[in-house]
C-alpha cells in the first residue's frame, strides 16, 4: 500500500508541470505591442515595438508597389508610398490595435496587437 506522501508528490508534480507550462507559454509570447506587416495576407515583418530603442526606416516592395515604413519606440507609420491615394501615409502613426494601416492598392496591412488593450474585437 502506497503512502499518502506518494500521492502528495504526484499532485505536486502535476501542479509543478502545469505551472511551468503556463510560464513557458507566457514568456514565449511577446509581452509588448507587436506590429505585424502583411502583404496580400502573408506576414513579411514582425516588430516588437516596445523593444525598439532607436528609430529606423525600411522599405517593403511587392508586385503592387513600394511602402517605406518608419518605426520608433512604441509606434509605426508609413512614411512614403508610391500608391495613388496616399491613404496609408496620411493616417500617420499607430501604436494600438484600433485602426490598422491599410494600403489597399499595395495590399499592405500594418496591424499592432498586444500592449494596451484596445477594448474592442472589431471596428465598424
Amino acid at each position, binding site marked *: 500500500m*502506497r503512502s*499518502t506522501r506518494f*500521492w*502528495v508528490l*504526484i*499532485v505536486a508534480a*502535476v*501542479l509543478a*508541470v*502545469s505551472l511551468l*507550462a*503556463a510560464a513557458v507559454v507566457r514568456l514565449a509570447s511577446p509581452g509588448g505591442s507587436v506590429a505585424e506587416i*502583411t502583404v*496580400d*495576407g502573408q506576414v513579411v515583418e514582425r516588430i516588437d515595438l516596445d523593444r525598439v530603442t532607436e528609430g529606423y526606416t525600411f522599405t517593403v516592395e511587392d508586385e503592387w508597389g513600394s511602402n517605406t515604413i518608419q518605426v520608433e519606440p512604441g509606434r509605426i507609420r508609413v512614411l512614403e508610398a508610391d500608391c*495613388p*491615394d496616399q491613404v496609408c501615409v496620411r*493616417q500617420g502613426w*499607430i501604436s494600438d490595435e*484600433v*485602426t490598422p494601416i*491599410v494600403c*489597399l492598392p499595395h*495590399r499592405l*496591412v500594418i496591424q499592432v496587437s498586444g500592449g494596451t488593450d*484596445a*477594448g*474592442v*474585437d*472589431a*471596428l*465598424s
Partner: protein
Amino acid sequence: MRRVGCLLLALAAAAALLTGCAPEEHEEIIFAMDTVMQLQAWGDGAEDALTRAVQRINELDRTLSVVNENSDIWAINHGQGAVEVSPDTLHLVELALELWRDTGGALNIAMYPVVRAWGFTTGEYRVVPEPERAELLEYTDLGRLELDEAAGTVTLPEGMELDLGSLGKGYAGDQVMDILRGSGVTSAIVNLGGNVQALGSQSDGSPWRVGIQDPEDESAYLAVLEISDLAVVTSGGYQRYFEEDGQTYWHIMDPATGAPADSGLISATAVGASGALCDGLSTALFVMGADAAADFWRGREDFEFVLVDQAGTIWVSEGLEDSFSLAQGYEDRTVEVVRR
C-alpha cells in the same frame, strides 16, 4: 479515503492544465471587393472553413464586380436584352428591389452613373452641376428593371447601370457565416471592410465587443456594442470623400438629388441577423436622416440602429439599449434612445 482524495486532486490539476489552453485562433487577411477583409475563427475545423470562406468571397467578388469584364454585373450593364445571371446575383438584385421599395428609394443600386460622374470610381473628382444630375437620375428608376425569376434573367432599360457594392460585402459575410457554422465553428468574427459579422460569442463565452468608428476621428471609436451572432454595418461620409472650396462631398449619394446625401447624419450603423440587409440599410438610413430612419425602423422588426448626427448626438434604437455603451473619452456625448 485519503488516497481517493489525492487522486481526485491530481486529476483536477491535470484537467486545469489541459483546459488552460484556449481554442486555437485562425486568421485570414485578404483583399477582395475593393477592400481589406479580416477573418478570425477559433477551434477545430476553423482553418479549413476559413479557406473555403475565402474561396467563396473571391467567387462572389468575380461575380458581382462592376469592373471585372467577366462578372454578372458587367454582363447586365453592357448586355442587350435579358441577361442570364447566377443565383447569387439574382438573389441580390431581388433583395435590392425589395429594399428600394421598402426604403422609398433611399437605397438604389442604379446610382453607379451618378457616382461615376462625381469621380468616385476614377478619383477624378468634380462637383456635378444640377442639370447634369437631373439627366443622370433619369436612368435610375429601378421600377423599369425587369427581373425574371424563373428564367434567371435581368433586363435593364437603356442607360441604366447597376452596382451591388452596397449589398455585396454583407451578402459575402452571410455566406461566410453559413460556411463557418456548417463546419461546426462556434466562435468567429469577420471584418469585411468595416462590415463586422460575428458567429456565436468569444471562445470564453463573453459577447464580442464591436467599436463604432468616430466619424470625425479615424483612429478612435465613440461607442461599443456587445453582440453575439449579429452583423454590424456602418456607412459614413468619412469613408470616401473629396473637398472643394471648403465643402466636403462624400460618396454616399441621395438618389433623390443625385448629390451626396445631406440628411444631417455623418454615420449610420445597422445591426441585425442579416449582413446583406444591414449593408443596404446602413446606406439607406444615412440617406434618410435620423427622423425618417426612426420611423422606418418602427415599421420593421429585423434591425436596430446607431446614428451619429452633425451635432455629435448619438441616436440608438431601443433594442440596443443594453448592449450599447459610450467609449472612453466620449462619456459626455448626448445619447438619444429611440423608442417604438
